[in-house]
């Protein structure tokens, strides 16, 4: 019985299917569903730009309007991936530019984007609307000028934590007078001052502007003018908050803030002087998101601010908040969902000691919706984690960074195994976990046993042996991304669980004890994986097979070995004649 629905009907039904996870499921049902789905998919996510070729993606989704790409492994954020490793946006832009000039949005994370790339985007996509670059690099402000001048329907231009060659602030002045469609502008990571009058004109002709994130160079004085031009803002990132203003200017600024009736998100606040904190009081009651991670504000001022933020759902702050400040958060911010506490000092010994595990415990007790935590702390205890786990079984993301490697429970001197056990046992929906402190293989046995929903796991300076890796790879069924550094496991666990690697997006291991021989073996036997050895010292190829490799990045791919590998990345495809026959087999 042919019960196939006409494709028009299918299309209509699929138009209600938004999430890509669902769409992926839909396309597995049968051929006609696959066809209809692929023709109607508008937003494409490629979470590893090397897992598939640009051409293949372009072919499959001809109706693509929005493309999201991720490039380098996460540890690139911490300088563990050498320059020149890869993650180039160019091949994607080139492929889309030729065939799919209707592309409207490009969202890139950890990719290398050049000025040429930006020019190509500006030249190829006439309907281009949104460029969001997160943790990208390789371009200069000239590239931004190209986007500004050419994209006449631009809605979003966001540079989030990018490394940009800053050649001055002219780029902003290239937005034509005819551009009135801007909804979101974020240039907070740039250094140079833009021309204020041009910025003001841009803001005043952008009635749809909802999100404006300025860079540090925009003064407090200038901020006032901008706020008066855009009282409709929902998200604001201020510039530097430290000029000396006279009384009149202060009260005008205060007035401007109080006009921001729609404001939900506030960030920036560089160098904020304590006497200016009250300027923010009028917007606090409406805030759902507050990023104070650049604001070197001391605890008492933070308390004043946060006690007014009763609707706060997301708080990023430095450890200057101390335990006392977190108590204030606990009592005032009952809607809190996400808390990130960053270290104020660069080194372990500069960590603020007035912030301990107690701060997090207090928040976990009082905030029923808390589901995502990133917490940098000098030290921690098992008891604290047990309490947190008991209080918050709804945690989805728990990233604890005990600043000192190998630090044990500071009260009992025991490893932190039991604490993390409590977390994974209690928080059944935990999807992301970062562990730290002194941990033995037992901790990983617990994680393997209980962390069934865990998708991403980050480990550093932990474990004793191969057992550690074995527990994780054999136990964590949902494991998608695993990143490990400076842990003493070797080849056995990796080779025994090789099949697991095809079910994961990627595995990163650096400064572990995996041998070159094991990498070769793995590469030979698992052709659907790219096993990339990063070897800047050029030791592995010339050394014996037993020599450990610096860094390995393994990911599943349909695209085969990539063509843009730098010379310090080795894969088996570079020397296919090297066999593994000389290794002991059976």
């Amino acid at each position, binding site marked *: 019985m042919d019960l196939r629905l006409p494709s028009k009907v299918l299309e209509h039904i699929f138009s209600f299917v938004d999430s890509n996870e669902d769409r992926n499921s839909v396309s597995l049902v049968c051929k006609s569903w696959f066809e209809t789905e692929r023709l109607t998919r508008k937003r494409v996510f490629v979470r590893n730009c090397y897992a598939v070729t640009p051409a293949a993606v372009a072919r499959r989704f001809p109706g693509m309007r929005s493309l999201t790409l991720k490039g380098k492994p996460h*540890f690139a*954020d*911490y*300088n*563990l991936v050498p320059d020149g490793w890869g993650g180039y946006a160019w091949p994607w832009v080139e492929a889309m530019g030729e065939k799919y000039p209707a592309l409207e949005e490009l969202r890139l994370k950890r990719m290398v984007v050049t*000025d040429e790339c930006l020019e190509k985007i500006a030249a190829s996509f006439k309907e281009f609307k949104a460029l969001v670059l997160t943790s990208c690099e390789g371009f*200069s402000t*000239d590239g931004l*000028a*190209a986007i*500004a*001048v050419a994209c006449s329907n631009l809605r979003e231009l966001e540079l989030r934590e*990018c490394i*940009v060659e*800053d*050649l001055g602030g*002219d*780029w902003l002045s290239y937005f034509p007078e005819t551009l009135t469609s801007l909804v979101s502008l974020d240039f907070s*990571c740039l*250094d140079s001052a833009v*021309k204020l009058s041009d910025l003001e004109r841009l803001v005043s002709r952008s009635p749809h502007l909802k999100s404006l994130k300025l860079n540090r160079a925009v003064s407090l004085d200038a901020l006032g003018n901008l706020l008066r031009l855009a009282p409709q803002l929902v998200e604001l990132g201020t510039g530097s908050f430290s000029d000396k203003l006279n009384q009149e200017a202060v009260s005008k600024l205060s007035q401007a803030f109080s006009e921001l009736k729609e404001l939900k998100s506030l960030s920036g606040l560089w160098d904020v002087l304590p006497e200016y904190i009250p300027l923010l009081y009028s917007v606090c009651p409406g805030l759902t998101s507050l990023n104070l*991670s*650049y604001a070197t504000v001391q605890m008492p001022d933070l308390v004043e601010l946060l006690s007014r933020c009763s609707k706060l759902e997301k708080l990023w702050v*430095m450890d200057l908040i101390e335990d006392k400040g977190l108590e204030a958060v606990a009592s005032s911010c009952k809607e809190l969902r996400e808390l990130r506490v960053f270290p*104020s000092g660069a*080194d*372990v010994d500069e960590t603020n000691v007035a912030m301990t595990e107690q701060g997090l415990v207090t928040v976990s007790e009082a905030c029923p919706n808390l589901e995502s935590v990133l917490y940098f702390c000098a030290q921690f205890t098992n008891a604290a984690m047990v309490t947190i786990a008991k209080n918050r079984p709804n945690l989805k993301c728990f990233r604890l*960074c005990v600043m000192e*490697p*190998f630090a044990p429970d500071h009260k009992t001197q*025991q*490893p932190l195994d039991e604490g993390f056990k409590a977390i994974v046992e209690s928080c059944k929906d935990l999807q992301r976990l970062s562990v730290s402190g002194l941990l*033995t*293989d037992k901790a990983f046995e617990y994680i393997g046993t209980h962390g069934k929903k865990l998708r991403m796991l980050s480990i*550093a*300076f932990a474990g*004793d*042996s*191969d*057992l550690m890796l074995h527990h994780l790879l054999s136990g964590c*069924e949902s494991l998608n991304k695993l990143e490990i*550094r*400076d842990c*003493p496991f070797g080849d*056995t666990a990796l*080779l025994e*669980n090789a*099949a697991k690697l095809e079910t994961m997006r990627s595995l990163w291991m650096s*400064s572990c*004890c995996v041998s070159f*021989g*094991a990498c070769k073996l793995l590469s030979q036997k698992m052709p659907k994986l790219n096993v990339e050895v990063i070897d800047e*010292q050029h030791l592995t190829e010339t*050394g014996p*097979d*037993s020599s*450990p490799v610096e860094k390995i990045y393994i990911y599943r791919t349909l695209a085969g070995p990539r063509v843009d590998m730098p010379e310090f990345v080795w894969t088996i495809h570079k020397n296919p004649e090297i066999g593994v026959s000389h*290794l*002991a087999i*059976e």
Partner: protein
Amino acid sequence: MEDYSRNGEISPQLLHLIPQGRRRNWFQNDQASVYSTEDKKLELKLGPPGEEDQHIKKEPKDKSILSLAGNHFSPSSTTNKTTSQKRTAPGPVVGWPPVRSFRKNLANGSSSKLGNQKSDEDDNGRAKEPKRQGGMFVKINMYGVPIGRKVDLSSHNSYDQLSFTVDKLFRGLLSAQRESLSFGEEEKPITGLLDGNGEYTLTYEDNEGDKMLVGDVPWHMFVASVKRLRVIKTSEISSALTYGNCKQKKMRS
């Protein structure tokens, strides 16, 4: 616990490549070495023979970060319970704590800019390789063209060569910019950059920040002092350039 493959069937692994002796020992006594005495024959064994319970092998190769960490991973003759005493904190380590570079030093009141200036050294203190190997690249911008280019002065020997390069670089871009104004206009070569006769003139900014006309000093002196190049409209020369003065006018269509 004997069955170490979760799904009951032996998935295509490399188990057969791991000698029997090793595998059997997985789930025995924690203290027992996973590596039995048979292992000494194995090529994949790491580290010198005769290790005890901890199979964290090896003296890693010196460049590894483990060497900074001192004795962490050296085999311990004690049991797991006292390993805490054996671990010592390493010195400064690349990428630790895992905080993005622009977050560091915020609290010290330093004026370090947030992250968009690549430091000359990476965290290891090694000087980063310059972005371009060899060559002397200077940025060049042209009036009316938003995107700058880079010119390798080390591959030029004279002003004429440079002028030719500028024409090559910008001719196409310039006519693309003009597309909207006069349809069908052919690409015009950019001439007269050095003698004041053309529509455009080549200028540069030297290492003292002064704006100068290109062509006045001997070539090698020019190369030694040039920091940036700019192609401006000849008509703007007298107002745009003042020797010893650093005023820079914004030129826009």
